[in-house]
């Protein structure tokens, strides 16, 4: 749930990057942090294990600029992808306004994407939110691996298995190379802000 401060003319929205473990959620945030240094005053916060895996969340506050006189502050979070950390995932999801689902394009990860998406649906439902109503963008990550000959799921297959019912915007991306990281972010921000504006009326 976003915070709209009429006194300071400021809107804070929470966007969460969700998806299976080792899918590239943190890498998305790292790329954004690296490339928007002029807009991001604070450091990225990462609570991770020694193996560099997200333990609790990553956090990156981001000033989008002004919309209708309001300062828009977007807070980007990632969740830990590993199945066993569902309690922390639920904590991070609290009050979410928009979601980027980062799917792993590798053929061997097909099932894991589905499990994670179902998990997202369930966790949202427990918070009385619907995956069909919340602003959501899909990102099919790791497209760059094709160049190394690693078998990837074709775009159409990913669309069919993850986006058939959702019918939300989707992007092929490489978080590591930065391909489509920013378009994904722009899309989710505009969807989130639009949905908050609608709620305000």
């Amino acid at each position, binding site marked *: *749930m976003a915070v709209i401060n*009429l006194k300071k003319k400021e809107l*804070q929205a929470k966007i969460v990057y969700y998806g299976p473990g080792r899918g590239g959620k943190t890498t998305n945030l790292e790329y954004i942090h690296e490339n928007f240094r002029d807009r991001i005053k604070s450091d990225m916060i990462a609570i991770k294990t020694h193996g560099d895996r997200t333990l609790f969340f990553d956090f990156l*506050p981001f000033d989008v600029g002004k919309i209708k006189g309001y300062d828009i502050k977007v807070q980007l979070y990632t969740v830990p992808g590993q199945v066993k950390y569902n309690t*922390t995932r639920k904590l991070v999801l609290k009050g979410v306004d928009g979601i980027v689902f980062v799917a792993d394009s590798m053929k061997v990860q097909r099932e894991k994407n589905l499990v994670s998406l179902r998990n997202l649906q369930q966790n949202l439902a427990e918070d009385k939110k619907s995956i069909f109503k919340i602003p959501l963008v899909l990102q099919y990550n790791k497209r760059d691996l094709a160049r190394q000959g690693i078998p990837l799921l074709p775009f159409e297959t990913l669309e069919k298995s993850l986006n058939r019912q959702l019918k939300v915007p989707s992007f092929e991306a490489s978080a590591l190379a930065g391909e489509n990281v920013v378009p994904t972010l722009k899309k989710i921000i505009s969807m989130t802000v639009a949905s908050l504006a609608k709620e305000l009326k």
Partner: protein
Amino acid sequence: MEYALEQEQLKNIERVLREDLIALGVHSVLLIDIAGNIIAELDNGETNHDVYSLAALAAGNFGAVSAMAEIIGEGEFSLLFHRGEKENIHFSKLMKDFLLVTIFGHETSLGFLRLKAAESIGKIEEIMQS
């Protein structure tokens, strides 16, 4: 979790925080919701913390501690306090969805701070429900 606060309410909340806590010598105080959003923040003019990160971490920390309490069969821990060499952080729950985070030095005693925090919480709850 949905809430709306009028400008007047926010103004009153800030007044309580300033008169009860900042005046007491607290370095900085944040009122946040459990999703990590900042509702009000005040400081004594000498600190410059990254309050957005602090709020996100405080909310996460509170969630984690609550989950620990549940595992060992406690409803909630009543005292949440981190002691540092120069700065300390104190957390208190406010209604169901909010947290009051106070950062203070050793010139302020923990007992007195807890007393004052409890007092301000009472007042803020009244304002929020008005």
